[in-house]
Each structure stands twice: as C-alpha cells, then as structure tokens.
C-alpha cells in the first residue's frame, strides 16, 4: 500500500521536475522568518512599538499572528500544487511550530476556546503532513484547510486570499483550500488536474 503511494509520489515529483512547472504566487508576501517567531513568544501583545508594517493597533496585532501561519500554509499549498512531497512535509513541520507558538491571549474567551479547538486539530494534521506520503498529505491538507478557513474567520488576516473549491476530491464530496492568487492551481491533484476548481469566496 505504502510502496505504491511512495512510488506514485516519486513519479509525480519526477514529472514535475521534467515539466518544470513552478508556482510563483504567494512567494512575494513571504517575509516571515524566525524573527517573527521570537516576537510572538516574547509576548508581542504588550509591545505596541514592536508592531511592524501592519500598523493597525489592536486588529493589526491579532492578524499579524495569523499572517505567518497563512504564509506557511501557502507554502504548503504550493508544495502540493507542485506535487512536491518533501517540500510539503517541510512546510507541515513549520506549521506545527507555528501552531505551538500561537498565542490566543488577545482574544475573548469564546474565541479562545474555538481557537484552541482549531489549533489542536490543525496541529495534528500538520504533524501528519510532515511525515506522510503525498496522498496522505493531501487528505490531511483537506481538513487543515477547513481549520485555516475557520481560524481566519476569527483572527482575520492582512492577506488578500481566495477560498477555492475542488468538487472532485474526496470521492466527489469536494474540498476547499486557500490561495493568494485568483488563478486556480489545484493542490489536491497537482499536475494531474491543475486547473480543476473554482473560487468560492474572496477574503479581504
């Protein structure tokens, strides 16, 4: 079972390398780095001066927490679009630490509970993505995307995002994902069905 998945994964990667398709979107807004990490751990909430270009006082504080997550989620999404299992695993691992460091203190208690549930669930999916073959990564990415959509509904985000929907994945039950570009690039099928799907909603 596993072997077939691995070999399809390898095949897919080989194919992508050959055709050299790469996804340019979402790269430009990735200014996140480890600097952000320590910012968050250091209780950013108390340090208005530490706020960066987001500017916007209170709401800016909240959204900046999700922005790094969104950026790393987009990395993961792009890796899956490119059928790149290794890059997806790496991005999944980074998201695990993002979720671990996510500070919910500035939210109301109901929101905190909801965020706690989302993060607990999402972290497990990110963990699985960091250590699974690409077929499994995509199964977990499906639920992780749902978690991210719900998380952003609470935290807001500075990014302009598109909520996309692929009706075929999951035995035609369909699956959502988030993208920073309007053009459809399908993370569930990659090169096999790159343009399958449509924009459901624009965020921001």
């Amino acid at each position, binding site marked *: *079972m596993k072997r077939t998945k691995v070999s399809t994964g390898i095949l897919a990667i080989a194919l992508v390398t050959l055709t050299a398709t790469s996804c340019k979107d979402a790269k430009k807004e990735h200014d996140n780095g480890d600097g952000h990490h320590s910012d968050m751990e250091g209780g950013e909430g108390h340090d208005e001066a530490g706020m960066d270009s987001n500017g916007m006082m209170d709401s800016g504080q909240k959204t900046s927490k999700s922005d790094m997550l969104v950026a790393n989620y987009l990395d993961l999404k792009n890796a899956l679009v490119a059928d790149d299992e290794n890059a997806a695993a790496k991005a999944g691992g980074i998201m695990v630490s993002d979720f671990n460091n996510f500070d919910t203190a500035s939210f109301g208690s109901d929101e905190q509970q909801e965020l706690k*549930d989302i993060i*607990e*669930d999402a972290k497990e*999916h990110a963990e699985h993505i960091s250590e699974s073959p690409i077929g499994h990564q995509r*199964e977990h990415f499906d*639920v992780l995307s749902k978690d991210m959509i719900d998380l952003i509904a609470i935290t807001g985000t500075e990014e302009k995002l598109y909520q996309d929907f692929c009706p075929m994945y999951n035995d035609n039950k369909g699956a959502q994902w988030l993208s920073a570009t309007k053009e459809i690039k399908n993370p569930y099928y990659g090169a096999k069905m790159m343009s399958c799907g449509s924009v459901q909603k624009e965020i921001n």
Partner: protein
Amino acid sequence: MLVLLVGFVGIQFFPTSRNQSETLPKIDFMVVNNVPKQVEITITTSCYDCHSNNTEYPWYNKVQPVAWFLEDHVKQGKEELNFNEWADYSSRRKNSKLKSIISQIEDDEMPLFSYTIVHGDAKLSEGQKKEIISYMTQLKKDL
C-alpha cells in the same frame, strides 16, 4: 555470541510500563455512543489494544525487547486516538478522527499488519470493515 546472550538476558531486567486499566471511563467511545453490539466487539478486539488505556498483553510481552516495541506502539497509538477519551475530544477533533478511522480502515492501513499477523482475531473481514465504516460515517454525519 556470548555478548549477545548476556545482553539478551540483561535486558530482561529492564521494566516497562504496562497499559492496563480495570474500568471503562464515562467518556469512552462505547459508553457515550450507541454502538451496535457487533461493531463494539469488533472495535474492542481490533483497536483497543493500542487505542485505549487497556491492552490485553500477549505472553511474549514478558520478553524483551518485544515489550519495548509494544510499549512504543501503544504509546503512539494512544496519542493518535484514544477511544477511552472520546467524549473529551472537541467536535472538530472527533470529525478529524472519524475521517481518519474511515480512511485507514478503507485502505487496510489499520489494524497494522504487524499486529494482525500475531492477532488473527483482530484482522477485519470485508463485512466487518463495511460495518465499521458505515457506523463511523453515520456518526460523522451526526456530529
């Protein structure tokens, strides 16, 4: 050879923690859900050794390094899913767990091959798989 033998005897003295509990907690999957008897028996037999706080240990668990190997499996299994703690999971997490249960059983990834090879009774027949999957699918819909 002698070194191996001494080593093998030596490791028999290392203790392992045992995963055993007498009672079924109030938050257990079987307690909080209305599980059909047949499905309950199948899940208890095929899943509970690694996905609950009570493992029915085989005799060879008394032999090292087997006991270590099993201890590690049980620990990982419980981290992933512990039926004994079901009611404590958020609906979101329940949904994720049900999805994984269904997909793992469909793909014959669970129960693990290394487990069913020694636990013949844990191996799921096609009929049992169908029963579990249809029950879990319904449960997921009702969340």
